């Protein structure tokens, strides 16, 4: 009597990470599939804690995503998903724990036996390796689609305008918006705006892409055009970490699904493990609420 509709066969194979002696609730995700020849973009989050005032939103979270891996973080509102994502590019400072990308600490450097926060300049440099796509797009409204895409390469990476334009048009082509290059964000639909935002994040050639509920602000009929672009990216070998409420998308695209609740990772595993055969009661009850029973009929 399964509550959740499982389209993929369920599996009971335990995760590779568990046998490695990692504490419960943490994940060492499976190695990336063989067709992705990614060599960069390993993300390791270790025991990250974060409080806003008296509220502890992250209570010691650990997560590893291998190069080229696709981790999808799901969970109820206020579970700390977005905060966790924002600590990965140091938009949110951690109160404890640390994050490394390909072994390099994010936002800090080791001096003696202390982690000193980096200067703004060095943090900005690190951020150019980490693309981010926001729920509310945050395109620059006074710049055209193309200008949005080439702003950071020109200003932050000091590339030549001609080169940036050429690459910008390629990226807009990749998200299917080459013909709207000169449109301003307000002249585009929500789905188109988000696709421009993805092209903008790709313009710095990041190792990692972070998606913070990329489809939550979109009309239902526009969700798929954005998800299709992300699906394509998942095959490209860039490491993706996606916070989303789109369970169907998580099931199709994720290597690892991470379920968070109340500032902790409750469990994580392959989509089959998490959706069809969750170990924890909290996971079970969450999915029973968010996955429409209609799929079962």
């Amino acid at each position: 009597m399964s509550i959740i509709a499982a389209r993929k066969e369920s599996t009971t194979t335990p995760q590779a990470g568990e046998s490695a002696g990692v504490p419960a609730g943490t994940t060492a995700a499976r190695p990336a599939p063989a067709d992705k020849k990614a060599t960069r973009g390993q993300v390791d989050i270790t025991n990250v804690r974060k409080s806003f005032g008296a509220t502890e939103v992250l209570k010691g979270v650990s997560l590893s995503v291998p190069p080229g891996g696709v981790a999808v973080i799901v969970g109820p509102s206020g579970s700390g998903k977005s905060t966790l994502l924002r600590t990965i590019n140091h938009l949110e400072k951690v109160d404890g724990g640390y994050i490394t990308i390909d072994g390099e600490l994010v936002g800090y450097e080791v001096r003696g036996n202390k982690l000193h926060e980096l200067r703004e300049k060095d943090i900005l440099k690190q951020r150019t390796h980490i693309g981010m796509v926001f729920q509310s797009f945050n395109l620059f409204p006074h710049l055209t689609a193309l200008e949005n895409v080439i702003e950071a390469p020109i200003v932050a990476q000091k590339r030549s305008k001609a080169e940036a334009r050429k690459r910008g048009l390629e990226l807009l082509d990749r998200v299917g918006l080459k013909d709207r290059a000169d449109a301003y964000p307000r002249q585009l639909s929500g789905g188109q705006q988000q696709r421009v935002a993805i092209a903008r994040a790709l313009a710095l050639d990041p190792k990692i892409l972070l998606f913070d509920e990329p489809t939550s602000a979109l009309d239902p009929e526009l969700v798929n055009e954005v998800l299709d672009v992300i699906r394509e990216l998942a095959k490209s070998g860039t490491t993706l970490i996606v916070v989303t409420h789109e369970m169907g998308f998580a099931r199709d695209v994720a290597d690892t699904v991470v379920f968070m609740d109340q500032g902790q990772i409750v469990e994580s595993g392959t989509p089959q493990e998490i959706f069809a055969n969750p170990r924890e009661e909290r996971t079970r009850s969450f999915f029973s609420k968010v996955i429409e029973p209609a799929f079962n009929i």
Partner: protein
Amino acid sequence: MSAIAPPATAETSPPTPDYSEYKLVPARHPWRWVGTVLVAAGVAAIAWSLVTNPRWEWGVVAEWFTAQSVVNGLIETLKLTAISGVLGFVLGFILALMRLSASPLLVSVSWTFSWIFRSTPLLVQLLLWYNLGYLYEKISLGIPFTDVRFFEAQTTTLISQFAAAVLGLTLNQAAYSAEIIRGGILSVDQGQLEAASALGIPAWKRSTRIVLPQAMRAILPNAFNEIIGLVKGTSIVYVLAYSELFYTVQVIYNRTQQVLPLLLVATLWYVVITSVLSVFQYYIERHFSKGALRTLPLTPLQKARKFFTTHVAATPTKDAR
């Protein structure tokens, strides 16, 4: 699994008559016409009295309008406006950034500056600056708490009428423009800054390329209000006997006793300056509304051209039809 219900049949409603050949007639607004006529009559009456009442002395106005002394005064007014306007907004920008900074000291210094200069009358400020020599005989630049002096001068030689006027107007203007600029910056969505820093764009470029261009939309209408206010506000420096436009016409009418015509001369020049500024405002605001509107409205010139091409140039084809 559910059977589809048969479509509801119109049992009672009679067949709809066919209106497709009917012409559409917009609603009439008779009261709008009554209002228009009344206002037009009022405007005509005012215009008539301006032209026919000899006491306006338009001949005297015309005589003095381009007189050398008046034009000199006008130049001084423009000079004061430009200098204290530019310096005021530059200082205001710095004060706004201080106010928005994370340092409590910078915030409170900026707040105190605005508090003092907004709460004392400009007239008092001007007189105080002009009489600074009474308070401090000498002004010097050196290392505090030592006898080292790089520069020293008598206050009275340093603070001329012009310097006092610029100082007073600038500091006063800075206090107001700081608030206008701060308001503009606050009106830009926080997500813009976040997106820019997530893209690795440095702080200074974030301000100048991302935030300010968007803040300008909120800043400009108020800024032009301030500049236009400043143009006329410069007339207050007559208390320093500084010969700008207003002081000049005062001197003239005290001699000739033609008070109203000369006040009209000054007024008309203020109207001219304000009109020119308003045209600037229109085009500058238009420039910064890039991307804020789906389609930019036509400029008056474009509208005129469009009117010409569609109405005037199109008439022959209409006749031919």
